[in-house]
């Protein structure tokens, strides 16, 4: 008989980041709805209240518009003790100019958070991290946290065995939520998962101590994105938090030289006070991000969720953790825990994320190409800035930029929107107008 969760079934979740905690939260919530009594253990050795890398899951710390809204509908609160800043706009910086794009209604729809207890040079702890918050929500639903690393896993008479530091426990289902920055893959292989592991690239994240008032004065409640023609740098972001600024660089072989060239770029320098320079020794990390999904995210009684399976390319990783965690929990409670159940009910969501990333690759390929072509870049900025004052509310370009850089819509939808004659016509017209303006300015400039 195909395995299902029954009263008394036991579930192990390896990893207590957003994917693991949300999986436990939804599994226990759904189980309660159908009067199913299951026990969930979350294996998480880290203490998310500790400052510095020891209590951190290394990430930019943005909760997208879509996820903020989904959590609100689910009744999952993001309290002010977790949200460091509500984001209502973003500013796109290029070497030909800058444009600010607001959310509809100028509403704070995006949350900036720290994942762990905060950067290591934190002086006063005013906010808690997202991961600790979600883990405590899972605990409130009844999940047990085992603060130990998983030493080994195996099978015993058709049941899963998880060996911690001192104990061995058996389970009916195991959810792998180990991300891509910790060792976990060997465990899944031991359990019989035959899959290509996720492909990753390294990013660079640093936390700059800036002070709350200064963050507000210089960065406000906007996320700042940089598309600069620096070799090896795909894109960069400065995310305002409470007392800190999180700087994320995505690219190839990000080294000290590239980091220095980024901070020295006029478009970046303009954002900071004149005398400011990055202080040496700031909390920083080079986490890997998943850029290609694991080919097979499940087998009988084992399912991979979050980053160790599939995530959205470059954006909204926490949103993808939410989607995969919830879909896996739904499958386990309402359908079953055999590979066939996950294939039927979990795979469509998983695969849709992976397939959408292919459109994301195309989109970011185009962005990469455009950022080297100044006339087109000027066209984008001109079209978007004119739209901010458009009386008929036509914000095609702004919405494409917003959705691309905030991860608020599927990449496929964004690509299809850019292929319409109205969009292309508007973009071309904007580029020509921007070229004419630039030519006029240059001809007026004193020689």
């Amino acid at each position, binding site marked *: 008989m195909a395995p299902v969760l029954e009263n008394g079934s036991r579930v192990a979740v390896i990893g207590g980041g957003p994917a693991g905690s949300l999986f436990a939260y939804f599994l226990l919530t*759904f189980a309660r*709805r159908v009067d199913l009594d299951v026990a969930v253990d979350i294996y998480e050795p880290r203490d998310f209240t500790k400052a510095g890398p020891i209590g951190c899951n290394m990430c930019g710390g943005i909760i997208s518009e*879509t996820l*903020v*809204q*989904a959590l*609100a*509908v*689910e*009744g999952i*609160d*993001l309290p*002010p*003790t977790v*949200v*460091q*800043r*509500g984001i209502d706009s973003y500013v796109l910086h290029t070497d030909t100019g800058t444009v600010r794009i607001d959310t*509809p*209604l*100028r*509403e*704070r*729809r995006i*949350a900036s958070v720290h994942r762990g207890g905060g950067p290591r040079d934190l002086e006063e702890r005013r*906010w808690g991290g997202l991961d600790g918050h979600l883990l405590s929500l899972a605990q409130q639903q009844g999940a047990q946290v085992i603060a130990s690393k998983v030493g080994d896993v195996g099978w015993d008479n058709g049941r899963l065995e998880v060996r911690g530091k001192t104990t061995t426990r058996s389970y009916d289902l195991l959810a792998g939520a180990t991300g891509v920055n910790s060792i976990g893959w060997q465990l899944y292989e031991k359990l019989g998962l035959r899959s290509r592991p996720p492909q990753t690239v390294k990013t660079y994240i640093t936390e700059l101590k800036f002070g*709350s008032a200064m963050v*507000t004065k210089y960065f406000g*409640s906007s996320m700042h994105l940089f598309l600069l023609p620096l070799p090896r740098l795909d894109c960069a972001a400065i995310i305002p938090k*409470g007392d800190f600024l999180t700087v994320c660089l995505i690219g190839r072989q990000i080294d000290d030289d590239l980091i220095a060239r980024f901070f020295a770029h006029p478009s970046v320098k303009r954002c900071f006070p004149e005398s400011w320079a990055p202080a040496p020794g700031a909390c920083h990390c080079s986490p890997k991000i998943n850029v290609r999904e694991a080919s097979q995210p499940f087998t009988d009684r084992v399912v991979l969720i979050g980053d160790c399976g599939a995530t959205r390319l470059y954006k909204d990783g926490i949103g993808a953790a939410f*989607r995969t965690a*919830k*879909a896996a929990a*739904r499958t386990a409670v309402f359908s079953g825990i055999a590979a066939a159940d996950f294939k039927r009910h979990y795979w469509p*969501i998983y695969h*849709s994320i992976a397939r959408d990333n292919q459109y994301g690759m195309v989109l970011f390929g185009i962005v990469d190409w455009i950022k080297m072509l100044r006339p087109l870049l000027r066209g984008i900025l001109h079209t978007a800035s004119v739209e901010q004052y458009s009386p008929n509310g036509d914000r095609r370009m702004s919405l494409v930029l917003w959705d691309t850089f905030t991860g*608020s*819509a599927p990449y496929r939808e964004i690509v299809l929107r850019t292929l319409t004659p109205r969009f292309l016509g508007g973009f071309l017209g904007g580029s020509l107008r921007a070229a004419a303006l630039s030519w006029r300015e240059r001809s007026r400039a004193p020689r």
Partner: protein
Amino acid sequence: MTEELLGREYQDGEVICRQGDYGDCLYVVQRGQLVVLHEKDGRTAVVGELNSGEIFGEMAIFERLPRSATVKAQGNVLVLTLDRRAFLRAVHEDPSLAYRILQMMSHRIRMLTEEVSRLQAA
């Protein structure tokens, strides 16, 4: 408003949605309290209140009819807006997202049934 909050701020007495208007979004109360008003034959009655975490405006999404009531802020409130298209897309992918809305609607029907029965008995 402090920087750590999400949604849009409305001042005391400000209308979030108005009875009779067509709406293409639903709302989630983030902080504060709101009052629900219904107008009939020139008379306005308070028909409910909304608190943090509650969802409103969903009827106009599912029925595509004008707003059935006016919702006003009582004191300063924060409300998150979800546009219809994005919400329905999310529900299409994950129908269980609508579970809490069903739960709330079911609770409101129960309250209404009790109210009707109380009025008939009076």
